[in-house]
């Protein structure tokens, strides 16, 4: 067992019985809109955010597109549909939304981030990680802005980008995920409230990890954030996303859109640790996490990599994808999805090979415990012109206990005979026999479980940036505590 791991296990012992530790709420005064959605609400939202005309029109068009679309039902999950007329589409803490100095941040909110382990003071932060903190609908604070600006990197909230960098936003927004791509991307395009914008200029290696920390606090608000990352020719960036929410009995909707654009020789690594509240044992409450994430390897030799650890949410529908347009471009998807209790996750990826000699790797590890349901859905498409392209997919499921389910739905199509697609899938059950075997060798039950789980997911977790990997191990241990035996 690695050093971190045994530390993680010790940590675990002190956390036993602690359940979801991010479930507290913060007492802040809100500036809310009336519930429900209409063209007026969309226009009002744009007005409050002091957006330019083109943005307002973008939203209104998206709203009308959404109105005509049907809510999708093709995935392997059942839940009560969100009541779109009963949602808050804008919910911002009353204090001045965009702040120049940390002193202006509502002390309650500051404390929230402290509790979550994300102190906003730069000197207290993990060195080398810049944070954009999104609280309900708005970005509260973005750190290290100046330092990043020296390198020419733009890292700010989406609201600010719309005002300060309209040319870039206009050029790339909805260029990867079109407004009408799906029901939730259309809704997001109409009502997205904030999110992060990153732009890495030509031949620049972003000097630090960028990260956004999402927090849903308000009970009735939907969170619709929008993230756009553009890496110019020869640029590279590593971006981390974390999320938590309080425990409420009602379901909350989170419908984000994330777009990545990598030009020639650019490299984007996007990592997520998703730990939204997942509801209680009876499946009451929790977040609906319906997210569209897609990247395009637009230029030759470009590289996009998605790594995700999905542990939270009541229902997750999420398929981070890569369009491999540039020749020799590389797309990767590394995923660990853990479901316990009554959680439902339908997640996977799409790799669309358009350019020549494009390569994609998919490593998906699903762990299901309790009465949960965990599905992997992966599409690999190799188009006619994608000569010499390769895909390699591994999709492993691990079941803990007898009442959970794991399902694999691969969709593979290749129109080019010089290309190859390789798919492997396994399903195993963490058995009492394995645990007994390790215990017979002297290892405690909890360590045995955590060794088995960590062994199962290590190929994915090693793709996470270091600070995240330690976090991830701990999260897994806490999440699966008591699932066996």
């Amino acid at each position, binding site marked *: *067992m690695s050093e971190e791991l045994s530390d993680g296990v010790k940590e675990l012992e002190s956390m036993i019985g602690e359940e979801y530790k991010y479930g507290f709420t913060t007492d802040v005064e809100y500036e809310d809109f009336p519930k429900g959605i209409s063209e007026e609400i969309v226009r009002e939202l744009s007005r409050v955010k002091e957006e330019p005309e083109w943005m307002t029109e973008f939203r209104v068009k998206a709203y009308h597109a959404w109105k005509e679309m049907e809510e999708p039902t093709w995935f392997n999950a059942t839940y009560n549909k969100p009541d779109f007329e009963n949602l808050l589409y804008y919910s911002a803490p009353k204090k001045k939304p965009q702040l120049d100095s940390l002193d202006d941040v509502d002390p309650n909110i500051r404390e929230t981030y402290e509790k979550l382990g994300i102190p906003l003071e730069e000197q207290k932060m993990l060195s080398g990680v810049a944070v954009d903190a999104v609280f309900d609908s708005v970005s509260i604070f973005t750190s290290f802005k100046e330092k990043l600006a020296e390198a020419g990197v733009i890292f700010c909230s989406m609201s600010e980008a719309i005002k300060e960098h309209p040319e870039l936003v206009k050029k790339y927004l909805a260029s990867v995920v079109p407004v009408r791509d799906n029901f939730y991307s259309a809704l997001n395009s109409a009502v997205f409230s904030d999110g992060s914008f990153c732009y890495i200029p030509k031949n620049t290696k972003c000097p630090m990890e960028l990260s956004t920390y999402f927090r849903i606090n308000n009970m009735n608000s939907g969170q619709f954030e929008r993230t756009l990352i553009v890496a110019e020719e020869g640029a590279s960036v590593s971006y981390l996303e974390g999320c938590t929410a309080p425990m409420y009995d009602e379901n909350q909707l989170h419908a984000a859109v994330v777009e990545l654009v990598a030009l020639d020789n650019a490299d984007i690594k996007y990592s997520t640790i998703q730990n939204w509240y997942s509801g209680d044992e009876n499946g009451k409450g929790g977040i609906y996490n319906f997210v569209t994430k897609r990247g395009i390897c637009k230029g030759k030799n470009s590289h996009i990599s998605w790594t995700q650890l999905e542990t939270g949410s009541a229902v997750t529908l999420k398929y981070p994808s890569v369009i491999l347009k540039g020749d020799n471009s590389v797309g990767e998807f590394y995923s660990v999805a853990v479901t316990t209790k009554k959680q439902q996750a339908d997640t996977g990826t799409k790799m669309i090979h358009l350019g020549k000699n494009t390569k994609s790797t998919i490593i998906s590890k699903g762990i299901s415990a309790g009465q949960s349901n965990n599905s992997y859905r992966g599409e690999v498409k190799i188009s006619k012109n994608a000569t010499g392209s390769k895909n390699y997919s591994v999709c492993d499921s691990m079941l803990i206990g007898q009442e959970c389910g794991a399902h694999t739905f691969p969709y593979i199509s290749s129109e080019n005979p010089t290309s190859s697609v390789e798919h492997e899938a396994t399903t*195993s059950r963490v*058995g*009492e*026999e*394995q645990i*007994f*075997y*390790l*215990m*017979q*060798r*002297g*290892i*405690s*039950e909890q*360590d045995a479980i955590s*060794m*088995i789980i*960590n*062994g*199962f997911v*290590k190929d994915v977790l090693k793709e996470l940036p270091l600070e995240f990997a330690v976090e991830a191990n701990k999260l897994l241990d806490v999440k699966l505590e008591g699932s066996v*035996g």
Partner: protein
Amino acid sequence: MLEIKNLHAKVEGEDIEILKGVNLKVNAGEIHAIMGPNGSGKSTLSKVVSGHPEYEVTEGEILFNGEDITELDADERAHLGLFLAFQYPVEVPGITNKTLLREAYNTIARANDREELDPIEFEDYITEKLDVIEMKDEFLSRSINTGFSGGEKKKNEIFQMAVLNPVLSFLDETDSGLDIDALKVVSDGVNKIANDKNAIVMITHYQRLLNYIKPDYVHVMMAGKLIKSGGFELAEELEANGYDALEKELVLNGEAQ
């Protein structure tokens, strides 16, 4: 060292009694062999002694160095020096043999206030142990038993025994599945591990193993009980006449139920 008194055990949560009054005493420096027909309860006995949660002790006791261990968890028993070489070693993908053994070695050392080995020291230690049963070092970095051949799994059990250096080892049909050469190598290994401070209980169907590892005592298990004990000659008798003859003889003598 080990004293099993009138041990009854059943499948947890069910009414299936498997061990029906086992008595066995093992002293330091001894080697015992248990033989008996399929399904007579030999593996169950080894698992019950090691603390498998699937079985419940309903009567009797298991004393290890005078301490009643019936209530201890499997890992706590391992810390006392109990080892089980499984009849069917379990595959655990994702954890290498080496990781398991270092973690196990150090956990046991910690529990006994002995010094732990750091990764470099452990590397030297474990490499030395490979020689005991002529195992290739590639097995160290492979996942526990995963994809091992039947014989390799059995060998791996004895390798682990060599590394963990237990006080009392149950070897459950370690010989089944080993080829003739491997059987000799593994037996030599076990003989090297055996000394006057530890003890070994071998479960086997074949006298052949006993030619390599000489037992001090041979016991016969039938229907959940050790019905007869003797020396090496008992194994020879069984090999010649089978269990049926023994059972009849016992019935005639009024010793069997």
